[in-house]
Structure formats: structure tokens, C-alpha cells
């Protein structure tokens, strides 16, 4: 290990077009994609990457770096759009507050200036802050290769630590995140050691309200499982229920009892478990409030 400079020898390529990038992925072995580099370079320096022969920098590919609302009113985020741009984006702030909050909660300013949501996904850490909001907002992950294009639901994207559903020849080109329905409230809550740290534990809730009942609810957590955890059943269990403080407390307890986190250098398993219930409560309350709901 040597953090002073990169000892590993590799080829560096910077394709100017998407086609060129896909050619490289199709033809070459052991290609790693450089988006922001805030994980890749750290891994390179700490000997965590063994099988990289080519580093492919995708920051010159124009169509990957944007962020816009498309004709259907959905949010489109390019793979290389910088977190610091996205967190300040007014459309995201207004319609996708949980995503905006998660991005703002990530790391430090300098890291966010480099980091991308595409990289956050491909790095596939169980801690990934943007994973929860993406899964809860129903994001589709766009993958492209020489063979064609496909989308995967964000909830199916993560397989295990560092491993995703993307094939070796596929490039993550971006995300399409459907427009939330009216009366939707969402929140993201995270506990870290310091602000610039990864999460000890995090949670996202996206809730659609109909009167005083929950029309739909999607929940996801970070740092409590080997991959970002989508709590499909617990979220679905709230559907059609009249929202009360008791319901929130019951759901929070249910979440705390359900998760099986491990202890590591960041915190203990017990603390993670206990905080899971706590931030679940806060997050559900905030999301419900933001949906326009009141607590009976």
C-alpha cells in the first residue's frame, strides 16, 4: 500500500464519444471506469483493486454529464453529473428532497465536487448514500453496451458488496427517476461520525398520502446489510393504513428488529441496530409531514 502515488501501471483512455467507450468495454479486458474517482483512486492506492489494466475516463462524453427533466416530467441524471451540482439543483430539491438531502449529506465539498451518482452506484458499497433515495423514488438505472440498452430497477441493481447487475461490457449511462405523485413526502436521515464521513447508518422514506392514509410507502436503508437494503415488505405493509404516531413507532420497531447490521471501525452492530429504529421514526415522521399529512 502506498497512498503517495499510484504504483500500479495501467493504460488510461479517455473516449470522446459513448460509442467509443462501449467499443473499449466490449473489446478490452479489465477496464475500470473513472467517473469522479473518489472511490476508484482510493481503492487503487490502498491495493483494493487488482484486476485493472485500463482506466477509462468517461468525463469527455457529453451526453453523460447532464441533468434535466424529460418530456414525461421524469428526472434524468447522467452518469458523470457531479454530486455538488445535483445537490444544488432546484428541480431535485423541489421534487426529490430525499435525494437532494442524501447528496448534501455525502462526504465533504471537495469530494462532492468530484463524485458522481453513477460512481456511487457502480462502487456498490452498502453505505452508498444515493442508493436509498434512488430505490425509493423508483429510479431506473440505464445500462448500455454494444449489444444494446436496458434499464434495471434500482432495487435490483445491487447484488453484494462491490458487485452490481451491470455486465462487464455495460456502461452505466444514467438514471431516470419518475416524477413523484402529488401528495408525496420524502426524507433522508443519516448518522455519521463527522459530517464528512460515510454513514454509520442511513434511511430513506418516500411516502404518498391520500387523506390521512398511506397510499404507498417505499423504504430503504444504508449500512445495515451487505448491500443497500430496500425494505419492500415493511414499506408495502403501510399501504392503505391510517397514519398515526403509533403506526410510525410500530414500523420503526419493526425495522430495528428486522435489520442485522455488523460492527466495524465506524461503529458497533448494537449502535447501528438501535439507531435504525430511531432514524426510521424520524424519517417517517418527516416524510409524512412533507406529504402534507398530519399525525393523529
Amino acid at each position: 500500500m502506498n497512498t503517495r502515488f499510484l504504483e500500479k501501471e495501467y493504460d488510461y483512455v479517455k473516449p470522446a464519444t459513448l460509442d467509443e467507450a462501449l467499443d473499449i468495454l466490449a473489446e478490452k479486458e479489465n477496464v475500470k471506469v473513472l467517473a469522479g474517482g473518489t472511490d476508484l483512486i482510493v481503492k487503487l492506492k490502498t491495493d483494493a483493486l487488482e484486476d485493472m489494466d485500463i482506466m477509462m475516463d468517461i468525463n469527455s462524453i457529453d451526453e453523460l454529464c447532464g441533468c434535466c427533466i424529460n418530456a414525461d416530467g421524469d428526472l434524468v441524471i447522467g452518469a458523470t453529473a457531479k454530486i455538488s451540482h445535483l445537490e444544488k439543483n432546484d428541480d431535485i430539491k423541489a421534487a426529490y428532497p430525499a435525494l437532494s438531502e442524501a447528496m448534501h449529506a455525502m462526504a465533504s465539498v471537495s469530494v462532492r465536487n468530484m463524485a458522481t451518482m453513477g460512481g456511487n452506484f457502480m462502487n456498490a458499497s452498502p453505505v452508498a448514500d444515493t442508493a436509498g433515495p434512488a430505490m425509493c423514488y423508483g429510479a431506473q438505472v440505464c445500462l448500455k453496451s454494444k449489444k444494446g440498452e436496458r434499464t434495471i430497477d434500482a432495487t435490483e441493481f445491487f447484488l453484494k458488496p462491490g458487485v452490481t447487475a451491470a455486465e462487464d461490457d455495460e456502461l452505466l449511462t444514467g438514471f431516470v427517476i419518475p416524477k413523484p405523485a402529488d401528495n408525496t413526502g420524502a426524507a433522508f436521515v443519516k448518522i455519521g461520525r463527522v459530517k464528512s464521513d460515510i454513514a454509520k447508518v442511513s434511511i430513506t422514506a418516500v411516502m404518498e398520502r391520500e387523506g390521512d392514509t398511506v397510499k404507498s410507502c417505499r423504504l430503504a436503508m444504508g449500512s445495515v446489510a451487505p448491500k443497500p437494503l430496500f425494505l419492500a415488505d415493511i414499506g408495502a405493509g403501510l399501504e392503505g393504513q391510517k397514519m398515526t404516531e403509533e403506526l410510525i413507532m410500530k414500523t420503526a420497531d419493526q425495522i430495528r428488529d428486522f435489520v442485522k447490521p455488523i460492527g466495524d471501525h465506524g461503529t458497533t452492530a448494537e449502535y447501528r441496530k438501535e439507531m435504525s429504529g430511531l432514524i426510521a421514526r424520524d424519517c417517517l415522521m418527516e416524510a409524512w409531514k412533507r406529504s402534507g399529512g398530519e399525525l393523529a
Partner: protein
Amino acid sequence: MYLNHLKPENAPHGEEYCTSMIGKNTHRWDGPAKVSGTMEYPSDVYVPGMLYGAVLYSPYAHANIVSVDTSEAEAMGAVCLTYEDVPKTVYNERSVSTPAGTYRDRIILPNKARHVGEPLMAVAAPTEELAYKALHALKVEYEVLPAVYDPEEAMKDGAPQLYDKIFLDEEEITVKNNVGVVRNIYEGDVEEGLRQADRVFEDDYSVGRIYQAQLEPKAAVVKPEVDGSLTVWGTCQSIHACRQLLGFLFQKPLSKINVKKMPFGGGFGSSIHVNTVIPICAALAVKSGKPVKICNTREGDFYSHNKYPTKFHVRLGVTNDGVITAGEVKALVDFGAHQIQPLPYMGCTAGWFASLYKYCGNITFEGTAVYTNKTPCCAMQGYGNPQVNFAIESMIDEICNEMGFDPIEFRLKNIRTIGDEFWAQGPTVRSIIKSSGTEEGLIEGAKKFDFANRGKFEDKTGKIRRGSGVARGFHASGTGGPKPGEVIDYSFATVKINEDGSVDVLTPVTDHGGGTWDAIRKIVAEVLQVPLDLVGLSPADTMNTGYDVCTHATRGTYCGGGAARNAALRLREKLFVMAGEMMDEKPDDLEVVMDPKQHQGCVQVKGYPEKRMTINEIARNAWIWSRGTLVHSESYRQKNAPPCFTVHFVEVEVNMETGVITLPRVLIYGDCGTPINPDLVKGQLVGAFNRGLGYTMYEWLPTDEETGALLNKGLFVDYKTPTAYEMPKVDNLQVELCKCYEPSGPFGAKGIGEAALASVQSAISNAIYNAIGIRFHEIPITPERVLEALKEKEAQA
């Protein structure tokens, strides 16, 4: 007119700087170069033809090197350095203590690893890339030995032994049960003092191992000259200490070693000793005959030095009317695999403890420092002061709570203040306190902070509990005293008036970033009454300066500035003699004043200001008439080490559900005597608060007991220091400078650097007690520990 071109309109700050600048905020001399990235640090030094070095660090906590094979690395074109190649001189890299008080236990590259990260071999090659390739090509066979990480385990019979023999000065010492140093200090009669007390408080406190976390990892460039001498550019807090050590190791006269003074990116104590890469770099340069550069990695730096973790057992006796009758501290220090060096560390710790309160003169300190197979520990901002302050100021808070004393009044009743004896750096460095800001800090601070209305934890309810705490501390300004003690302390300065009346200052004193160089320039400008922007700072090295011990012990401004002031005063006498001859006046009748219109210092007749010459005129005439250069060099020892005091008021909010603690409000009183540059003093107080916050709540360096490696592997990825985000908001972080004047200091100045940290830990912990009624005896106080303690308390209730 030639050499008469200095005009106010050409001055960078106009007339602004043509007045006394002591106590006013001025632009940093090195600011523009630092913010524009043009300042040259050791890692920026390039010498044509130089090789790049890399160091092999031990993967094992305790192992013998059985064999090495360098053939493959050499075939790649690398110069390899092993145990066989280095001088076997046993050394201690820290030389601020006298040789009689310095244990020596290491050589440049040993054949036995005693901690993970110990430098064992090194290579040099024409590129850094090749050097690291060659490093990987080194073949080493180890015999792995059992290791010990806990100091109490290390002292048991049968525990793995790190050393058989070490040296104290010239004497060979046998190490038994890994005990490196025992230091016991007794004054008065503690048992008798405790008998006179109405209550005796007894408890344990523990402070963890952390890392200095200075910005700059260490670097060195060593160039062997044709005549056999060595030129050195390195990360050094003392150029002269570095020169002495290299002379000692390579058996060269000091006149054959020249160490250049460089700016450096912070030290926090980690460069008081000569950094491990410098002798390695020198040995590579000697072997290869070429200049060699080594820039350490961050992980290499993490394994080079940590802060001393210490366990304290404390007893204090108190009478019902609030007098502390005796104080006893027993300390167990886990200092790691080398001594850098725990003997003075324990002496200083005893001194800080003894100087906090009077204890009716009944003081006992018993310290034991133990070798373990961990990173060696060295100074870090306070040298035992923040450690023991946490223990004592926590217990003082406990006493006040238990016995119902007002924490301000109780402290005022028991403190050492003006007229009392102060142990500046252990029992042998004592002086009498002549100025004290403690009273102002405690009394005014309590009012400003509304401390009296902090309430009791028993009355606090809700999810967020707010509490306030106070603690006080200090540090010595330097290590001087009326008599020489166990710490060497003197400094040096040369001041020279140039042919146009501008001034050059030459000082061996280094600047960690706190602004010492600016302070020295301002002191000289003030003595000579020359506009500050006409005072330049000369490049300095060990050949063109006299000895200065080190910029450590909060001594830069007080001792280095003291030497500069004295040199300037002597130079001013020479100026008056020369001016007297030119003006036909007696030197004693002359004085210096600043003239903003001419942007010059002037010499004038006292009481008759119409008769004057500018210093430009005097110096220019001296040049034209070949009268010589006005210059004076001075080697100077400060005969005091006055304490600079701090008082910290801290408000915390404890989240009862998460255990997370935030700091809504902080008030800091700092007494540095006259603040030469107030903003820089405040900057140190704020910066130190941040480091103390990290020490108290976030930072620690646990060891993986399977491998002996640091759990964070020496990476910041898993070593979180607080940033601005964790600090109180700017408007709620108030810093006040006490109105104090130190008679022995240059223009009344003392230091501040280490005092700024001393009482942060205890103030935060005392505030936590006021919020939730839980006394923490160990730092860091993490959310996990807070929740656990809250649960325990609930279970007991």
C-alpha cells in the same frame, strides 16, 4: 537618488504600517506565498541528479530479520540500504533534554522490528516509481516474535521483551519487564495533607492514543557535497537539532552539516524530534554519493508518531471550606516501541499537574512508562498537559458538584497565580508567575457566558439536554528559568540594517504556521521603529545562525522573539553610536521614532525632534563613507517560562436517543500577554479547540491485536477529525484575549499554542456532566459510549 528610493507611495500597505504594529492585526509575511501555492516546502525541493528514496516499513509488530536479499532490487538500478549499511550508533531523535536526561534505544535501520511500521530498509532510485518497484523486490525473511500491546500486560513476568539494553546518556541500562522509565516526584507530605482534608476524592482517568494529523507528511532532501559535507532540506522544527543528530550519527563535525530552515505544514509536536526519514535519507545519500529525496507517505507518518496515551489514578484532598490539601497522581504511560521521550513527558506531566493548584504544597507524582509493540509516541500540543488536565479538571468539577462549591470560586481559591511558583517543564524548570489571565477568564467569562444559570442536570428533561462546563489550563512559554534545568533553552537572532535603512532579520526559529516569523519581524520593527514592511526575513540555516533549541514548548514568540528583541536593542545602541558621530550628539541623547511621511525610521535627539536623521540617511552615509554594516547577533536565554493561561466555557447539547453531542456555544479566554498579532492568537485558540474537540469526541487509534497494525491502517479514511461543520457556528464561538502584560516577555508577550488546547477536553466533559449527570473518565466520548452510559445509569436507577 541612489539608495534613497524608499517612499511611502511604494509601501505595500501605505502609511498603515508606519506606526506601532504590536497588538494590531497585520498581513502575514508568508500568506501570499501560501495561498498562491508558491511556498516551497521540503517536498518541493529539487536538486539536479537526485535519487528518490522509499522506505520499507515492518509488516510485523515484533520480528527479527533473519535474512535479506537485495539483489533483485539492485539489478533494477536501486541503491539499497539495510542494517548492514547504517551506523550502529544508538540514538534518541529528540535532543531538547540534556544528554543526562535522554534515553537512547534506536538505530537508523534496526535488524529487529518492534512495531508495525518500523522502518527496516530503504532504497533509492532515479525515479520514485522505480524506487517503489525496487522496494517490492526486496526479499526479507522474518522470524516473527510474540508481541505485547497492553502496558499492564507488558510489565508482567514472561511478557515479550522489546529490549535488553538501552542507554541513558553513556550508561548502559538493562530493561526489566519493559519498563522504560520510572519517574517519581514528591513535595510536601501527601498523606498528611489528605489527613487534613474533610473529603478525599479518588478516581481513574484515561486518555487515548491519537495522531498529530499535521497537514504535511515528512520529507527530506540530503545532498552530499564534494567536500564530504551534507546539505539538508527537511521537515524540521529545529534545524540545529537535526544538524547535531546527523553529525552524531555520521561522525562528522557540525561544520560539515548544513540544515536549511524551511516552511512546514504544521507539526503539533511531531517534528520536535528529528523525523525518522531524515537520517534514512542521509544514509542513502552517503551510500549512493548522490542527493536523495524521501517524501513519506501518510500511512508511514501515522506509524511514525502518535500522542502519548496515559492512564491516571488521582487522589485529591479537600476541606469543607474549599481548600485542596493534597494532590497525588499516578500515571501509566504506554509510549510504544521507542523513547522520544517519556522521561521529560512524565516530568512535564507532573509539572502541569503540580502547577494547576497549590495543594498546600503536598504533591506526589508517580509515573511509569512502558514499552509496547506499538507506534512510538512523541509530543503533541501540550506534552502531557491536555492529558493530566483532563484528569484534574474533571475531578475539580466532581468536587464542586459533590461538595456544593461554585466552580469559579473554588478554582480562584486554589489556583497558582501571580507570585506563586510555576513548574514550566517538570520539577527542574521553575519560575515565579508574573502575569495571569486566569482570574479575568474565570470571572468575566462566567458573566459573559451566563454560566451561573447553567442549571442542574437533575432538572433537565427532554430529548436534547443542554449543559455548560468550565475548565482552565495553561502552558509554559518556553522552558527557560533562572537556572539551567533538564531542558536546554536558548535562542539566537541576527539583525542587520541595510544600506537603504531597511532591515533583515535572521532567526533559526521555525514557524509551524502560527505566525512566529511575523511576530519576530514585528518585534524588531518596534525596537528599531522601522515600518514593518521594511523588515525582511532572511533565509536561515545552521551555518549562518547560532543555536536555537526548537520551536516547541510554546516558545517561538517568547524565546525566539526575545532573542530578536535583544539583538535589535543591541543593534539600536550601535545605531545611536554611529548616528551620534554623524549628528555630533551623544548616543545616550538619541531615540528612534517612525516617520510616516518619509516611511522611515528616524534617529532624533530626545526633546529636540527637529534634529534628526532617517535611518536611511545614516545607513546610506555609512555605506558611502565605508563605515561598515550595522549588524548585531545575539545568543539569548529567557530566564523565565511564564505560563500563558486559558479558560474554556463550553455548552453542549446531548441527544439522549442517539448519544450525539453538539456544541451550540463556546467562549474561550486566552492570555498570551500582549498579543503581537491578535487574529493569529485567536486563530490558534480556535484551531486548538478543533483539535481538542477531535481528541475529546472523535479520534482514537486502536490497534488490531491480531496483527499489531493500526485498525485504520494509517489512513484518514478511518480516522475522522472534526471539520468546521462540527464546530460551533462562527457567531457562537467567542474568543477573548485577556488584558495581560508579561514583564519578562518581548513587549509583554507570552506564548499561546499549547495552552490553547490544555483545557478543551475537560471543559467539554464537564459540560456533558452538567447536561446528563454522567462523568466520563475516558476520552473519546463517542455517541456509542454516551448511549451505553445512559443505559447503565437508567439500569442503576
